[in-house]
């Protein structure tokens, strides 16, 4: 029997980006808030010493900041006809663990989704006719518009100090920015980062070909910045250790560098680390949550009652908690009915590696950052005519030198011997003279891709693991082939002697890292028959439960997700503050 703890107004599960943003907003409202975090406390001052922060063995090879499979893992399979097996080492994606979550080890690329993204099915239907959407493609509208999101994108960008150049200010297209983006009310809080040689060359070549290159919007800061909460961040030093690492320079936006210094000072906020939530408790009606049950490191089960339960864990864990707690109807792949677990999507990570003449080119890839670089958006989403192409979607194309980690970076052209003097020579020749251009592309929902509870495997606490059933749909593979070929043209135009194209192809493998941009499973929307939460991220079934994370995306855009996740957190917090607290209950009546 779980020991019952004193009541709180709000319990938040997971203290990463979304948990800390919402906790801070609700504390400002005067509520008594407790956050339960399954991992340890992490802070720049105590955990990311400049002397060991860029330790590749520790943070990349051994993944110190990531979830340990022994804590919990997932099972995976490509289709419902297979038996899923557990991931015993995280490969394809890296769930975070500890305060700050995956936002500690992210790269920092901070997009807004495009206006068409939020009404994707309507948009394609209007432009091409309903027949262009394949029967098994379950893409849908988000239940809100870009205009609804704009103020919250703005809030997140100013919180994080995003460095970039607006491409559209109040409908006026701006030189040097992304001309395809939705209108912004104001400029980025900070100017774009400086560009190194590689991205400069990419931008020149792309511009000559008629593309409109612009600097990647970056949450690695271009200058010292004090955000609206009063927290100061530093200028990025281009050390090249962002993805998989914590930032020692206070330069990469994370909960630690933007919110926690303020949140942790608040007397109405309490954080309990190393506490794993087992389930959300519902009352006898099943329509109201009474709180959560969790287990601490001593193994004791504790019950935290609260008026509001907000699931802000990693997206897979949010979906799993909904399933374990019986909130919402689970998706049934055989009938296509039910909603929880439906529309699980990923992102198509495509890449072209250029090998240049080592006598003429030195890109010095050691100078880099997860979000420094130049991009084009002509190949993204519906920014080009898909009418004759036989697929939908696209990706953001960018030349972003993220750094050259000495252990894992082994760029050699195809045909290089795997060892010996031939390999050494190729390594020497290409280490400084290779350059990658990526195209992080959309992943559209398919009725065969979903999440559910594994029937066989359990975690250390005896709960079924989350089961991923996923493969790249034919549409996305076709799209990847197309955009990667286009990117190859640019890399050749840059002067590469060899441009090696790596379009993402099936079947999906759990082994090589692709991105942590797994999304969906508790889609948001205006229609309860195809969504789990309403457009304020409130559960249709249990109105005092909200969930905030990429799990509410109905499908994925050709943009990295964090900017949108952060904006949704501010939007949900605003809805709770301005509407829910005045009249607790459903914010939308379907």
């Amino acid at each position: 029997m779980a020991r019952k703890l004193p009541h709180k107004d709000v319990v938040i599960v997971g203290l990463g980006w979304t948990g800390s943003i919402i906790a801070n907003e609700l504390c400002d409202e005067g509520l008594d808030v407790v956050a339960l975090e399954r991992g340890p406390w992490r802070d720049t001052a105590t955990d990311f010493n400049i002397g060991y922060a860029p330790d590749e063995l520790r943070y990349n090879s051994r993944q110190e900041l990531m979830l340990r499979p022994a804590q919990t893992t997932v099972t995976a399979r490509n289709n419902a006809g297979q038996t899923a097996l557990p991931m015993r080492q995280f490969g394809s994606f890296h769930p975070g663990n500890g305060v700050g979550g995956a936002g500690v080890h992210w790269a920092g690329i901070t997009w807004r989704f495009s206006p068409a993204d939020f009404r994707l099915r309507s948009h394609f239907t209007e432009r091409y006719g309903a027949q262009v959407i394949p029967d098994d493609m379950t893409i849908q509208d988000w239940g809100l518009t870009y205009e609804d999101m704009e103020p919250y994108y703005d809030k997140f960008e100013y919180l994080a100090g995003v460095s970039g150049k607006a491409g559209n200010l109040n409908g006026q297209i701006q030189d040097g920015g992304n001309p395809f983006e939705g209108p912004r009310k104001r400029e980025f809080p900070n100017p774009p980062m400086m560009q190194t040689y590689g991205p400069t060359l990419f931008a020149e070549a792309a511009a000559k070909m008629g593309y409109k290159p612009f600097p990647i919007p970056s949450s690695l800061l271009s200058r010292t910045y004090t955000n609206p909460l009063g927290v100061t961040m530093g200028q990025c030093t281009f050390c090249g250790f962002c993805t998989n690492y914590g930032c020692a320079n206070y330069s990469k936006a994370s909960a630690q560098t933007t919110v926690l210094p303020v949140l942790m000072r608040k007397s109405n906020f309490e954080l309990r680390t190393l506490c794993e939530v087992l389930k959300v408790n519902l009352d006898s009606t099943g329509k109201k949550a009474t709180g959560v049950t969790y287990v601490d490191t001593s193994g004791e089960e504790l019950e935290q009652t609260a008026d509001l339960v907000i699931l802000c864990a990693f997206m897979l864990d949010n979906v799993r908690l909904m399933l374990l707690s019986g909130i919402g109807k689970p998706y049934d792949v055989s009938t296509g009915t039910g909603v929880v677990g439906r529309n699980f999507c990923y992102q198509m990570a495509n890449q072209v590696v250029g090998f240049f003449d080592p006598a003429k080119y030195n890109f010095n890839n050691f100078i880099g950052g997860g979000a420094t670089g130049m991009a084009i958006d002509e190949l993204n989403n519906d920014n080009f005519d898909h009418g004759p192409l036989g697929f939908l979607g696209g990706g953001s194309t960018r030349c972003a030198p993220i750094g050259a980690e000495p252990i894992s970076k082994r760029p050699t052209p195809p045909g290089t011997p795997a060892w010996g003097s031939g390999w050494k020579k190729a390594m020497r020749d290409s280490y400084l003279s290779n350059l990658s251009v990526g195209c992080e592309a959309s992943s559209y929902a398919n009725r065969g891709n979903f999440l559910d509870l594994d029937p066989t495997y359990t975690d250390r606490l005896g709960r079924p693991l989350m089961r991923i059933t996923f493969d790249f749909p034919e549409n996305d593979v076709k799209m990847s082939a197309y955009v990667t070929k286009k990117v190859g043209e640019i890399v050749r135009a840059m002067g590469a002697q060899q441009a090696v194209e790596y379009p993402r192809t099936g079947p999906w493998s759990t082994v090589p890292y692709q991105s942590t941009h797994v999304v969906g499973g508790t889609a948001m929307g205006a229609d309860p028959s195809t969504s789990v939460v309403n457009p304020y991220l409130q559960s249709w079934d249990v109105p005092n439960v909200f969930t905030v994370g990429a799990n509410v995306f109905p499908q994925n855009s050709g943009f990295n997700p964090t900017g949108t996740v952060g904006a949704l957190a501010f939007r949900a917090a605003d809805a709770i503050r301005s509407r829910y607290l005045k009249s607790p209950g459903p914010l939308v009546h379907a």
Partner: protein
Amino acid sequence: MTRTRLAIAAALMVSAASAVTTPALADDQDFTLIERGRYVATAADCVACHSLPGGKPYAGGAALQTPFGMLVAPNITPDRETGIGNWTEEDLRRTLREGIGRGGKRLYPAMPYPAYTRMTDDDIHALWVYLQTLEPVSNAVEANQLPFPFNIRLLMAGWNLLNFEPENFKPNPQKSEEWNRGAYLVQALGHCGTCHTPKSALGADDNDRALQGANLQAWYAPSITADKRQGIGNWSVDQLTAYLKTGANHQSLASGPMAEEIQNSSSKMTDADLKAIATYLLDQKPPEGKAPAPLAADDARMRTGGAVYTDTCMACHGGDGKGQTFLFPTLAGSGLVQADDPATLIRLVLDGSRAVATDDRPTGPAMPPLGWRLTDADVAAVVTYIRNSWNNAAPPVSTGDVAKVRKTLAEAN
């Protein structure tokens, strides 16, 4: 609300400081008087010594390491058995003004009575009334943990004879009311000299060198005079006020004992009082010592130090030593950096520190400890380098200087 209260309290205090003695208010439950007492306790930073981290405020403190041995600040809550519940106001007055506690017990000057002796009777009265409102906490503290013969309190009678005479605060009629308010806060309540004034061999303040910097508990508290090289003479009143209020200004961030002072005391003081302190301090102009010639850039120590700086320090503090405002201190032109005594500088490199977080500047960034990866020779070189770059000039630091600080830190940990 609090701010309004403090402002009222401050207004009252300003008038008190102009040496007009207002009659003591009879009502011990007088709200304004209690709040004023709270403010006196805050400005005097009583809580810093008389509390344990995370413990009940004023219920007795942590051990204070003095050159003569260990002292522990006692419980000053009104508990009858273990606190000051049996004291009279006169007992408190004698403690503060004469260094003689209840029953004639001689105090050690770790309790800064050489500063508090200048407190006005009104402030002592307000403090007394405030202390009576605290929750009595039962916590027996053995204050005197000094070794023989220093544990003989009567010795302090002799010490006082040589080093101490009760005195009143003496306003300077040539100066403004604000200046005099600042002088009172610095000399009496704030007891700034306890850390920042050099000590004689007997541990008494060397008032001829008041506020010119002193070494205490393995920290060098730098000069807080208008000395342009080793002090804060390049700061404006507003910049110093910002530092005291928020823990950070255009150049510096407070850490170590000063972080505690800001957290407990000056961040909670009124802007007017902080401005008064700044006005007074920046008017303290010691004879400028002759700046040593900076080491030549091609000096071997400078070249080694420059290499260590590039590898280890430059990412935050910049190639120009300018740092990043409110995050990484500016080394160029810093008084602490150029102080004759490099102990704090060495200590920061070896052991790191965390800047104070305040409501206005909540970031609380850290200087990471680097002693685990830098040798004494590396540290000596890099410290020498920053003391002699960007127009800084200060004597070089030897490997032995670093070894000494490393040893002190190892013993303290």
